[in-house]
């Protein structure tokens, strides 16, 4: 049974969680706006169905309510680190394909990339409150950019942004879950075992 948090750690965690929830909410609305711009600028059909894109972490999870707090944070962190790489690839491709022609979309992409990076850092902060801390990123080389045609890349970008919007929703729910005290205890134990 892990020792209960000190009041200051619990307070710090609660503060980080609520700020994280706000960050996730803002990120989601920005991603939705970006999605609209992206669909329009890339000449895509908003209803286009995109099969699951390789390398894009899936937000949907089975037995969500059985996950421990640590699992939630770790899965979130893994996802946002992956999105950071994917969005950076999208931004690089945007510059290569369009140069200075569509800076609006480029700026919106860069802004969301910034938020994703900030959110990943935020998750690392939360995990630092745990004894183990966040997993290191060393040695995890980003997946190579698959050789795709331009249309497939457009669809892939659509898939990335759609999944990111789903993750923003899930992250807010995960963080809300972390702020809930576990049943039968006044203070929140560390997340190792609390679902």
């Amino acid at each position, binding site marked *: 049974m892990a020792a209960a948090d000190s009041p200051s750690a619990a307070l710090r965690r609660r503060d980080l969680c609520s700020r994280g929830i706000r960050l996730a909410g803002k990120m989601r609305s920005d991603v939705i706006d970006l999605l609209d711009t992206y669909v329009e600028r890339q*000449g895509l059909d908003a209803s286009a169905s995109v099969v699951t894109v390789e390398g894009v972490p899936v937000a949907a999870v089975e037995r969500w309510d059985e996950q421990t707090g640590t699992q939630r944070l770790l899965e979130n962190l893994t996802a946002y680190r992956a999105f950071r790489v994917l969005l950076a690839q999208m931004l690089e491709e945007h510059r*290569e*394909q*369009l140069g*200075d*022609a*569509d800076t609006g979309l480029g700026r919106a992409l860069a802004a969301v990339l910034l938020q994703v990076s900030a959110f990943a850092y935020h998750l690392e902060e939360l995990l630092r409150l745990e004894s183990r801390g966040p997993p290191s990123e060393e040695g995890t080389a980003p997946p190579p950019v698959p050789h795709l*045609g331009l*249309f497939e890349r457009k669809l892939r970008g659509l898939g990335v942004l759609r999944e990111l919007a789903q993750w923003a929703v899930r992250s807010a729910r995960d963080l809300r879950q972390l702020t809930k005290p576990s049943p039968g205890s006044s203070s929140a134990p560390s997340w190792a075992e609390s679902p």
Partner: protein
Amino acid sequence: QNLKCVTHNLRKMACTWDVSSRRRHGQSDFCYTTNDLPPPVCFKTKEKRVEIPVPESSTTVTITTNSISGTAIATKQFEIHSADISFVPLTPRILSLTPDFSTSTLNLKWSDNGSAFPYGLDAFWQIQILRKEAKEKVTQVTYYSKMTHEDVILSWNWTSDMPLECTSHYVKIRCYINVTQFVGPKDWSDWSPVKEVPGKDTEPNGSGVFPQDTVVAVGSDVTFCCVHEEGQQIERMSYGSKVYPLIRLSSRSSAIRVLNASASDTSGTNVVCRLSEDEMDGTVLFVGYAPDVPQNLSCETSNFLIIKCTWKPGRPSGLYGKRGTNYSLFERISGKNVSCEVNEMNRERVCGFPVLADQKTYHFILGVSNPIGQTQSSLLVDLTQRVHPKTPEKLTVSGNSSTSVHLHWFINGSFAEIRLLCQIEISSGHSEQKMHNISMPGGKFSTYTAQLNTLHPYTKYQFRVRCSAADHFWRWSDWSRVEEHTTLEA
């Protein structure tokens, strides 16, 4: 009967004949005279075909058909004149058929077998392009060449109106050689065996929409095709927001034809192939213009270190990023070439070129290219006549007299090769603004001085200065900052 002789190379001819009797027969005795001079040459043959020299004028052929046991059944004599001999060139041999998928071009290479013929003969080559499963004829062209009495490899290119990936393309060729001195009938050779360039619709993992991410000029007609797996159905194919009628190419490939394509958005126009089972494939087409001739090309130097060339781009190409317009500045006298970093969205374009030691005259050629085309603009300049100095800096005014002052200013640049003309503007509250011009030898990153006299005592003045080339005026620099100074009391 029906003795026929055909030559493929004007030297040897192949003669064939029929035997009317139904009785089984053995070998034949074949005799021929060379230009009707005895003795005849004779030999036995089982075939009803022999190869003998082409006579200069005529030859007499005697054919005796024997029974199985060797007894003569029938003998017939034929008089063959040059006019009776047909000339049919050998079937041409295709050496290679090479596809260039990026340009949808087929390159055909074949040998003209010229060593077999006298020098200078006209040769005509009919080339047929076939397509689709049914090998439908797409086009037939006639290519002309002249024999050189050597075997020459001929080459011919054909650009398809659809990507070569869409379906298999086939080529065959035949020839006609106009042997003027040959009196007999002349005919086309047989068609060569068909040479194939297989389409993606024959490959197991060949699916896709083609052409892939290509660039065309506004107004082009473009054929797109969707290659899919066996058994899959194309529900519809669209270009941008418009659905187009499908053209069936094979069981795994259908096409659409877009006419007179208009300029695409910055991210290109999507071509989407919607397949059964909610699958989708696509490509992107970029439709733009070839670069316009750069207008108002002008080059100047502000410091004799760098020459700055500017121009107006003309009509935008509509192509961006890696498909955008590339600019390079080539200086013909020195042979030096510089590629220019240009922001496609700026109306004015700028490119820097280093001032070269001991070179006063520059012949610039601004090369402009994008995936659709290229153009250029040129300019010949004497650099000393294109000096546009930088803004004078660090203007200071000093003086311990009531009617004169000394001005000092610095100009960033190396003007040792020219004289400078500087203009000093003198303003004071209650008298009219005056201009004082002064010329001086240019210096290398120098400070320049001037003395102004006949000023009013105890008066507050504002001074500023600008400079240009003295001998060949081109443009004034910008004005320096204003510097104030009050003259001493008288």
